[in-house]
Every structure is written in structure tokens, then in C-alpha cells.
């Protein structure tokens, strides 16, 4: 297996489109990596002109791409990422892991908007925060993420899980407004608070939260529940990501909505 490390040579002060980095072929044509075309200041530029490149053989199951010294102007990293591991040691811009279908993306920093939008599989792990539209649909589209896992150890802002169809989003902190709007299915766990206008147009799907959520009158309180599924979820997150979600034997208050669209999405709030 190969570990490819690319390090930015200069400060990026305007938008850098990194989507073609996903075209790196770890098995063949390693010499062509520096000729991959990136889009910087609306002009094509070879990767080799912006990044220093280092290739090393490693023992392991997966190839690794390590990207150093990016900033929030660097967008589309991990676009349509298919397999292998992508590691980022800094903050990164928008569209991280958008449309990805496999592999892992680890970010040791914060991310801007549209993280994991329309992803179908794979894992995104973010050490800090992410802004708007986590796991949502991309602009002009109606379908959000439909598989995979997004783990955010910080907070998120608005429109988390917009149009989400499947998959799992875990937020260790809180989320702001318009969370899980038009959600069709999937699982969202937000350990702390959720802002206003939660679950508008929600049809199905499950949202776990620790604190009281403002659901207005379009969610109906059902009953207290200790879902056995929560044990599975707890074990899954603990074994795979070392995360402890609430207490294992928690009892939840259960709400159904959005009743305006005859939705049966469920909101489970720890009791």
C-alpha cells in the first residue's frame, strides 16, 4: 500500500477546488499525481505547483492520502471519494466528502458547509465543527445523504440532514436551526441541543437528542420507550468510533412528526 502526502507550498487566499484530488490512482501512475489539474482562482493549475508531494510504501490494508496545511478556502476535498483513507491535518472548506461512496475521511479541524452532502457510503470523522448543510442535498438537488456515517465531535449550524435519506450523523455538540428538515430516513444523534424549526417536513427517520427540542405543534408526543435498537446503535458507535452515546439503558420520550405531512419521523429525547 502507498501513503501519499501532499503539503501546500503557499497560503491559499481565494477558492481552491480540490475535487480532482480524488482521481489519484494509488496503484498505478503515481508519477502523474503532480500533473492532476486543480482549479485555483478559476484557472487550471497542476497539483505539483501548489503542493509538495511525498510517496511512501506502508504496511496496511488501505492506501492513505495525507493533505497538509489546507484552510477554509480549500473546497471539494474528497469529492466522490471511493475508497482508501484521506487525512487532513487542518481546517478545510466546503463540500468535504460530498458524493463520496466509500473509504474514510478524517479531518483534524473544522469544516465549512455541505459536509458529506449526497454521500452514499463511507465515513467522515471531524474533530471539530462543521457549518451548514451537513449530510444534506447539494444545491439544486432534492436528495440528501443516502448512506455512510458522519461523526462531528464539535457543533454544527443550520440545515443538518436536510433531505437525508439514509445513513448516520453523530454530533457531539449541538445543532442550530432547521435540523432534519424534509428528512426521509436515516439516524441523527445530537448529544446537546437542537435549535428552532426542527423536523419541518420530516417523513421518517430517527433523531436522538439529549436536551429539549422545540418541535412546535407539528410533532406529537407518543410514549416513553427504551428502544432495543438504541443498544445496537450504542454498541455500533462504541465499537467502531469509541463514542458513548448517552447512557446505555436510557429511557426516551418519543415524538412523532411532522404531522403536517403525515410524517412518522421519530424524535427521541432522553428522559
Amino acid at each position, binding site marked *: 500500500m502507498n501513503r501519499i502526502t501532499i503539503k501546500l507550498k503557499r497560503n491559499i487566499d481565494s477558492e481552491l477546488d480540490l475535487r480532482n484530488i480524488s482521481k489519484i490512482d494509488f496503484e498505478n501512475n503515481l508519477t502523474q499525481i503532480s500533473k492532476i489539474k486543480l482549479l485555483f482562482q478559476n484557472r487550471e493549475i497542476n497539483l505539483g505547483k501548489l503542493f509538495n508531494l511525498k510517496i511512501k510504501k506502508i504496511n496496511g490494508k488501505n492506501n492513505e492520502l495525507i493533505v497538509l496545511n489546507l484552510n477554509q478556502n480549500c473546497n471539494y476535498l474528497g469529492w466522490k471519494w471511493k475508497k482508501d483513507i484521506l487525512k487532513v491535518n487542518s481546517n478545510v472548506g466546503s463540500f468535504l466528502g460530498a458524493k463520496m461512496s466509500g473509504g474514510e475521511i478524517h479531518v483534524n479541524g473544522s469544516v465549512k458547509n455541505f459536509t458529506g452532502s449526497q454521500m452514499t457510503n463511507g465515513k467522515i470523522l471531524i474533530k471539530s465543527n462543521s457549518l451548514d448543510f451537513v449530510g444534506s442535498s447539494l444545491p439544486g438537488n432534492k436528495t440528501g445523504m443516502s*448512506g455512510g456515517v458522519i461523526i462531528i465531535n464539535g457543533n454544527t449550524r443550520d440545515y443538518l440532514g436536510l433531505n437525508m435519506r*439514509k*445513513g*448516520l450523523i453523530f454530533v457531539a455538540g449541538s445543532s442550530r436551526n432547521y435540523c432534519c428538515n424534509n428528512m426521509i*430516513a436515516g*439516524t441523527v444523534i445530537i448529544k446537546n441541543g437542537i435549535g428552532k424549526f426542527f423536523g419541518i417536513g420530516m417523513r*421518517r427517520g*430517527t433523531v436522538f437528542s439529549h436536551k429539549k427540542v422545540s418541535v412546535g405543534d407539528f410533532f406529537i408526543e407518543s410514549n416513553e*420507550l*427504551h*428502544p*432495543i*435498537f438504541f*443498544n*445496537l*446503535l*450504542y*454498541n*455500533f458507535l462504541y465499537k*467502531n468510533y469509541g463514542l458513548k452515546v448517552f447512557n*446505555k439503558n436510557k429511557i426516551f420520550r418519543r415524538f412523532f412528526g411532522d404531522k403536517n405531512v403525515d410524517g*412518522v419521523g*421519530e424524535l427521541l429525547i432522553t428522559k
Partner: protein
Amino acid sequence: MIDIEDTFAEAFPMKASRLIITAFNKKWAKKAAESFCGFATSVIACGCEAGIEIDLPSSQTPDGRPGVSVLVFAVSSKELEKQLVNRAGQCVMTTPTTAIFSGNTSEDKIPLGNALRYFGDGFQISKSLGDRRYWRIPVMDGEFICEDFAYKMKGIGGGNFLILGENTECVLGAAEIAVKKMNKLKNVILPFPGGIVRSGSKVGSKYKNLIASTNFEYCPSLKGVVKSKLDNNTRCVLEIVIDGINEEDISSAMRHGILEIINSKGLKGVSRISAGNYGGKLGPHLFKLKSVIS
């Protein structure tokens, strides 16, 4: 001195699957498993052979509750699918607090929750975690959790040995000792009641509709009427049938069972250990008793 007859057990390839049944406590997990494995002694008329493989502590089950691992064997994939769904639906889903998960993986899927979900009448919820998918079916005590698919694997059915002795008391005692030991082993089940069968069968019958009938050569009451394999001092024969995942598992189970009888102190009246076979013509898996215990 117990004589080990120079013969062999003849076993057949089967389709198998492992399921894990969990519940609020061990008692209810076991009740569901026992119900699931009810009327599953022989493929001759039950459709499948099933049994409890092993009890599982909370730390070894998918949902962290006490559980039981069950093995199911059938002669065809179609029959295995049918039996799994019917038994999971009627015996496990009906038992309070239970959940059911697949206990093995393979390429060959058997719809489990995928078929049972319709009981939810539209209120069922599908959840995917990693590469596994579960169904949450609303029931009157909460939710029945059921994994989307069980998985088919190769198995072997019909490993066996016969215990021959002077009377019922001593032969039954010996069989119980062997069963106790064999029940601790993984990858095998003893599908008959208490692990022991008294009505060993042969293929065919004088009656057209029957595919199996009594193994008259080992029936003490027919001695003198038919060509018997019993000597004058043998008045009881019991059989232990073993289904397992592979040859090594069955061989190991037979060895443990037979050696437990041979080495059991104070066990009197058992004269011989034999095995049931069809002359080696039907089943591809042959377990020679002398090789098995060596």
C-alpha cells in the same frame, strides 16, 4: 469394558444457518429459542433440524442482552428459508422482549426481517448500521428487532453413534452423560429431545408412503423375528444424532461423547458403541468410530 464396533456413522451435506436470539433476560431468550427449535428433530417430517448451540452472555450479543445461539439445518435452501421465517415469526417475534439476529455471514442471504417486517403494517422502521440492516417492528411490548437477513452456510447432518446396553437405565444414563458433555461444544447441535433418540430409522418401509421406518436390526423386541445386530444381553439401544458445521466439529462431538461414556466411572451395563449408516452408499461424510476416538 465397552466395545467400540468397527463401523462408521454416515452423514449428509445440509444447508445451515446460525441465529442469535436475545431477550430481556436469559429465561425469555431461552423460551424463545426452545420454541423456535420445537418440532425440529428430523428433516424426515419437520422440515428442518434445529437446536440450541450455546448460551451467550450479554457481552457476546449484538444488543448487549442475554442470548442464545441457535443452529438450523435443512436439506434444501428453499426449505431452510421457509423454516427460518416461519419459526422466527411464530416463535421468536411472539415471545416477550425478544430480538433476533444472524449469527454468521456469507454470500447467501435468507430473508428474515426482510420478510417479517410486513407484520409492522407500514409502521416498521428500517435501520442500517455499518453493513447490517435491522427492522424495528412495533409490537405490544415495544419493538421487535430483527436483522434484515440471516445467512446460509454449509452444514452436515446425521453424525451419530449408538449406545447399546443391558437395560434402559444404564443406556439412558450413559447417553445423558454424553449429551451433557457434547452440549458444551460449539458448532454442533443434538436436535432430538434431550439430545437422544430412541426411534432410530432406516431408509424406506414396506409401506409406500413412508420414507423411513424403524431400524429393526437394533430393536430388542424384534430379536429372533428379524436378522438382529443385537446379542442376547442387549435390551436397549439409544442413539445420539449430531448436526454440525463441518466434519471436524461432528468428529470432535462424537469423540467427546464416546470418551465421556468410556471414561465414566461407575457406569455399568453399557456393552457396545456402534453407529448408524447406509453402507456408505448415500452420505459422503463417513465417521469411523475407531478413528474418531483415536
